[in-house]
């Protein structure tokens, strides 16, 4: 494997706010993430905490009602936030990083054969000829274990699991360095899910692709994670390596989240977290988890800094 002087991706202070009639939604609020080549980072968090918005912010796939969008997205040493849209489209989106969107299996075009849909990104973004692009589509189908004769089928002729694999093939076909997977298996059955994770592991090891895996499912996230970033109410509250995170998470929210997972192989009773995450329109000042935190104390009324302990980043006063 080649040696890389800089990490694949460094995100600093990324921020994406939306304008709504009720006020400004602070969906992504000063997020930092770093990711190495050939690695996978999991973004873990509950519904509405800003995971999909973070994916949009990284890939600059913005809705119309953006109130504020800024920060640094440094990909292979270049801050691509500074790129003009045209340059970003030509050299970054789909080319260097691509996305398998949330509910991708239901967002394929119903009237175009799946083979043609998978071929499209390389034709559009890399200017590949149609014949060559179809050839690539074919080899991607093999990669993701979709039978070759399915190239000629329409999405409705495929099961959910197969359509999800097709969406993955589409993200792979341009051979990007990084793929963002937004809840790739949440709607799928257990066995299908396990099969797809097997496929992702092969792709990661054999093609050397890095992943940002977005999910609320802690157990399956451990199937791919080298690193874990926990998101709560628009912010990253802990960034850790998988061995530490899955054995000893630091942030009280991470700890409770971990303890809430029902386990097949142990008799430990799962716990639950009282209450709900705060509104992102006027989030509380101070620690955003304070209201639900069993360890809350006086200082938590102020915004906690991000502190580092043994390479793990945690945004909590307990570690100051």
């Amino acid at each position: 494997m080649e040696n890389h002087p800089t990490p694949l991706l460094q995100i600093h202070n990324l921020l994406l706010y939306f304008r709504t009639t009720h006020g400004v939604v602070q969906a992504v609020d000063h997020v930092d993430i770093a990711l190495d080549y050939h690695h996978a980072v999991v973004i873990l968090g509950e519904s509405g905490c800003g995971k999909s918005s973070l994916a949009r912010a990284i890939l600059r796939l913005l809705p119309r009602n953006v109130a504020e969008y800024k920060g640094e997205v440094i990909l292979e040493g270049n801050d691509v936030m500074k790129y003009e849209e045209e340059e970003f489209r030509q050299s970054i989106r789909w080319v260097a990083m691509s996305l398998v969107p949330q509910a991708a299996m239901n967002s394929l075009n119903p009237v175009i054969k799946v083979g043609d849909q998978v071929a499209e990104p390389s034709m559009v973004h890399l200017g590949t000829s149609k014949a060559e692009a179809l050839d690539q589509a074919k080899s991607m189908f093999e990669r993701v274990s979709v039978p070759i004769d399915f190239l000629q089928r329409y999405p409705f002729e495929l099961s959910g699991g197969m359509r999800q694999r097709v969406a993955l093939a589409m993200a792979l076909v341009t051979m990007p360095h990084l793929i963002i997977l937004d809840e790739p298996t949440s709607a799928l059955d257990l066995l299908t899910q396990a099969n797809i994770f097997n496929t992702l592991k092969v792709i990661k090891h054999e093609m050397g692709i890095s992943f940002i895996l977005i999910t609320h499912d802690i157990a399956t996230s451990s199937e791919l994670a080298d690193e874990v970033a926990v998101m709560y109410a628009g912010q990253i509250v802990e960034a850790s390596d998988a061995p530490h995170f899955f054995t000893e998470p630091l942030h009280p929210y991470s700890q409770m989240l971990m303890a809430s997972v029902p386990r097949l192989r142990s008799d430990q009773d799962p716990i639950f977290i009282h209450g709900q995450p705060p509104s992102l329109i006027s989030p509380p000042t101070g620690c955003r988890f304070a209201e639900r935190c069993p360890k809350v104390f006086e200082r938590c009324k102020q915004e906690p800094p991000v502190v580092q302990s043994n390479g793990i980043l945690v945004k909590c006063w307990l570690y100051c």
Partner: protein
Amino acid sequence: MDNPIPNSVMDIPSVNPPTGGEDSEVILSVNGLHVWFELRRFGFGVAGYVRAVDDVSFDLKKGEAIAIVGESGCGKSSLMKTILGLYKPTKGDVTFEGKSVQQLSGRDLQWYRSQVGYVQQDPYGALPPFMSVERILAEPLIISGIHNSEKRREQIRKVMEEVKLYPVEDFLPKFPHMLSGGQQQRVVIARAMIRNPKLIVADEPVSMLDASVRVEILRLLRSLQQRHNLSFIYITHDLSTVKYFSERIFVMYAGKLVEKAKINELIQNPLHPYTQALLSASSDPDYHNATKFREVPAGEPPSLVKPPAGCRFHPRCNRAIADLCEVEAPPEFTPQPTHSTLCWLYR
């Protein structure tokens, strides 16, 4: 368990049970149940059947909680809806306290509906969007003929406290969209509980909820079940939640119950190759997972229109016995008294 609460927690004018119901331990009995949906040809005639439930039998005792686990489309909801009397069986029957559910009509059917609470799949679609919580909970009482609004309100208050929707006054006027997913699911549960049923059927009650809330709702259901000695059918695709909830578990594959066991038996000693696959596909959070492959059969569950001959799992089974499994459907084998399976390996 805390002190048993008298049978009637909520003051419901009792609709009398149909006469002749025997007082056995078994409350619900499903016998050779088949639920097939007709596939109509364009024009006329029947082109085939979706065999959503195919020869399913089991007994449920008073106060017992069972779980039915299976993947999408295996027939779980069809089975439940037939138990609830919403679908007619193609063959076989369901009896509740000794009475055939399919034969009930008029007042008897109304009585049955009051005895069975239903927590349906998808809380977001379960609640009528233009009704307040109070109205949603009043509806079943009005149907039961409780016309005194003061009395209704009292019962609504009681049930809301049971599902921990308090302060009650705050929630009464709210509409579903003003509630979090977990709160909506509490309303659905309250609605299922309000007529003081003996049996609760919960179809994927937590699959749409966040992990941190899921356990809370399951605990709530479990405590209601134990407190009122309810019989309970919990339907799920999530094996890891089952053991916190029920005594027995049935595994469903392609319209059939392929394994029935006590929870611990099933987890420690799964018999059917499909159950074994389900167990090895379930992960617990563990960083070692990232460096291992999961041994799972490839492929997908079969079409229920033309299911495979013989054992329905045989095309995906790595232990299939040649000239047997693909030819003849396995009958139920019972290697241990409380543990049975539809698999030729145990012949």
